[in-house]
C-alpha cells in the first residue's frame, strides 16, 4: 500500500524528485566561519543520471551530504518527492567514497548487503538471503557472498558497496566520488556497471565527481559548481547518445566539446 502522493507545491513538476532549494552552508560561526556553499538551487528529475562537478574543495561533497540528510544546511532546504529532508529519508541511499571504510570488516559480503534492509523487515533469513544474492548477482559477485570484504580487490569491494546500496531498493542513489579510489581500468568497468544498473532498475542517480570525463560519460545533465563559496555556474545538457561505449564515445565530437568546456572551466573557475 502506497501513501497518496503529496499535493504538488506551486512550480513543482511531477518529474522533480530531489529539489535543492537555496541551500547555503557555512562551517563554524556565521561571522568567522568558512562559507562552503553560497547558494545552490538544483533539481534532479526522476530517472535521470545527474552529475555535479567542480574544482577541488568547492563544496560538492558537502552539498551531497546535505542532500542525503547527513548534514544540515545553514540556509535553505532539500525536498525528496515534495517532503522536506531533515534526516536520511526513505528511498534514498548514499554511497561513500571509501569502500574500505564503508564496508564492515566483521561481516561477510552477504551480511554486509543484508545490513541495508534487514533492520526494518521481519523477513526470514532465507528470503533476505535471496534478496542479497539478487543484488550481488547484479554486480557479478554472487560467488563471493561468503567471503569477507578484505579478501576482495578494491574494485570488488566497491561493487559490494553498490550491491548493498541497491539492496535497500532506493528511488535515488547519491554517489560521493565512488570511483576515485580504484585504478583507471577498474573505474571504467565500474562505469559500465553503474550505467547498466541505472538503465535496468530505473533508479535516479546523483553523482559527485571531480573527474570530468566520468561525468560526461555517465550523465544526462551536469551541474558545474564554482570554487568556494560555491554557486551553480552552469547546468549542461549532455547530448552524447546512449548506449555509450568507453572507447568510441570518448571520440564523439559531443563528448569532446562538452569535456573541453567543462574541463577548462573547472581548471579556471570564475
Amino acid at each position: 500500500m502506497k501513501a497518496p502522493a503529496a499535493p504538488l507545491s506551486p512550480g513543482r513538476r511531477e518529474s522533480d524528485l530531489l529539489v535543492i532549494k537555496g541551500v547555503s552552508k557555512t562551517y563554524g560561526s556565521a561571522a568567522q566561519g568558512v562559507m562552503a556553499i553560497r547558494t545552490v538551487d538544483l533539481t534532479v528529475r526522476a530517472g535521470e543520471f545527474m552529475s555535479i562537478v567542480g574544482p577541488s574543495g568547492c563544496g560538492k561533497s558537502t552539498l551531497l551530504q546535505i542532500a542525503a540528510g547527513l548534514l544540515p544546511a545553514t540556509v535553505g532546504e532539500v525536498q525528496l518527492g515534495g517532503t522536506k529532508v531533515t534526516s536520511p529519508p526513505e528511498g534514498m541511499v548514499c554511497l561513500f567514497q571509501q569502500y574500505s571504510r564503508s564496508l564492515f570488516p566483521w561481516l561477510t559480503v552477504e551480511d554486509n548487503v543484508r545490513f541495508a534492509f534487514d533492520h526494518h523487515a521481519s523477513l526470514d533469513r532465507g528470503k533476505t538471503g535471496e534478496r542479497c544474492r539478487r543484488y550481488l548477482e547484479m554486480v557479478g559477485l554472487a560467488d563471493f557472498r561468503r567471503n569477507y570484504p578484505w579478501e576482495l580487490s578494491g574494485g570488488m569491494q566497491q561493487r559490494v558497496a553498490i550491491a548493498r546500496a541497491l539492496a535497500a531498493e532506493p528511488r535515488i542513489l547519491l554517489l560521493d566520488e565512488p570511483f576515485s579510489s580504484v585504478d583507471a581500468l577498474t573505474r571504467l568497468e565500474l562505469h559500465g556497471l553503474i550505467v547498466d544498473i541505472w538503465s535496468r532498475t530505473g533508479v535516479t542517480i546523483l553523482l559527485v565527481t571531480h573527474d570530468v570525463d566520468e561525468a560526461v560519460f555517465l550523465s544526462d545533465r551536469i551541474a558545474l559548481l564554482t570554487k568556494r563559496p560555491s554557486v551553480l555556474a552552469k547546468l549542461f545538457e549532455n547530448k552524447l547518445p546512449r548506449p555509450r561505449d568507453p572507447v568510441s564515445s570518448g571520440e564523439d565530437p559531443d563528448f569532446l566539446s562538452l569535456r573541453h568546456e567543462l574541463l577548462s572551466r573547472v581548471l579556471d573557475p570564475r
Partner: protein
Amino acid sequence: MQCLLVSRFPHVISLKSSRRSRLYDSGWTGILLVVVLLAAWELSVSTGTVRSDSWPALSSVLTALVHGATSESWASMFGSTLYRMTCGFLLGTVLGIVVGVLFGVASYVNRVLMPTLEIFRTTPIPAIVPPLIFLLGVDDELKITIVALAAFFPVALNTLAGVRQVDPIHLQVAQTFRVPRLKAILRIQLPSTLPYVFAGARISLGISLIVAVVTEMLAGSEGVGYFIVSMEYAMRADDMYAAIIILSVLGYVLNRLFVLLEAKCIRWARVLHLRLT
C-alpha cells in the same frame, strides 16, 4: 655496483647456504638457549661450582615438581589460586566493559568519574591489600576483589578507546540505511570495539595471575603464593622452584588459550591488523 658488492663480500652470500646460518634462522635457536641455560643450572650444582641450600639442582627441582604435580594437595592449591584468579578476572573484565562503554557513549559520565578513576588506577594494587583486609578479611572475598580491581583498568581503558575510535563513515552508513540508533550501537559500535576489549582482557589475564599470587603472599594461608613463601621459610628450595615453574607454565598456557579464543572471535581484526603493519 651490485656486482662489486657481491664479489667483495663473498662470505655474506655464502653464509646464507651454510648450516650455521640455517640454525640462526630457524625458530629452534631460542629453544636451544633455554635448554643450554637449564643444562648450565644442573651442571652448576652437580659439578660443585655452586653450593647453597637456596640453589637446588634442576634434577631435584624436577623431582619435586613431578612429585607435587601428581599430589592432590598441589592440585587443590593451584586450583584455589586459579579459582580466585578466574573469578576476579571475569568480574573485573565485565565491569571494565560496562564502565568503558558507559564512559565512551556518555561524555558527562566521563567528565564526572574520570579523575576518580585515574587516582585509583595509579595506586599500586598490592598497597591497598592491607586496608582492604579490614573490610573484607583475608579470604576469597579479599583476593577476588583485589584481582578484579587489577583486571578492571586495562579492560575499561581499552574499551573506552575502542568505543571512541569507531569509524564515523560506518556510522554514516547506518544513518543512510536508516538503521535505528540502538541497533547501530549493537551492530557497529560493539564489533568495532571488540578488538580493543580483547587486547585489554589479554593484559588483564596476565595481571590477574600475578595479583592472585601476590595477594596470597600478603594475606591468608591458601594458594600457590602462600605455598611459595612458606617453602622459602622452610628452606625447601626445590619445592619453591617447582611451584614457580608450574606458575610460569600456567601463565604461558593461559595466554596461548586466550590468543586462540581471540583469533576465533575476531579473525577479521587480526587480518586487518597484519595488513596495516
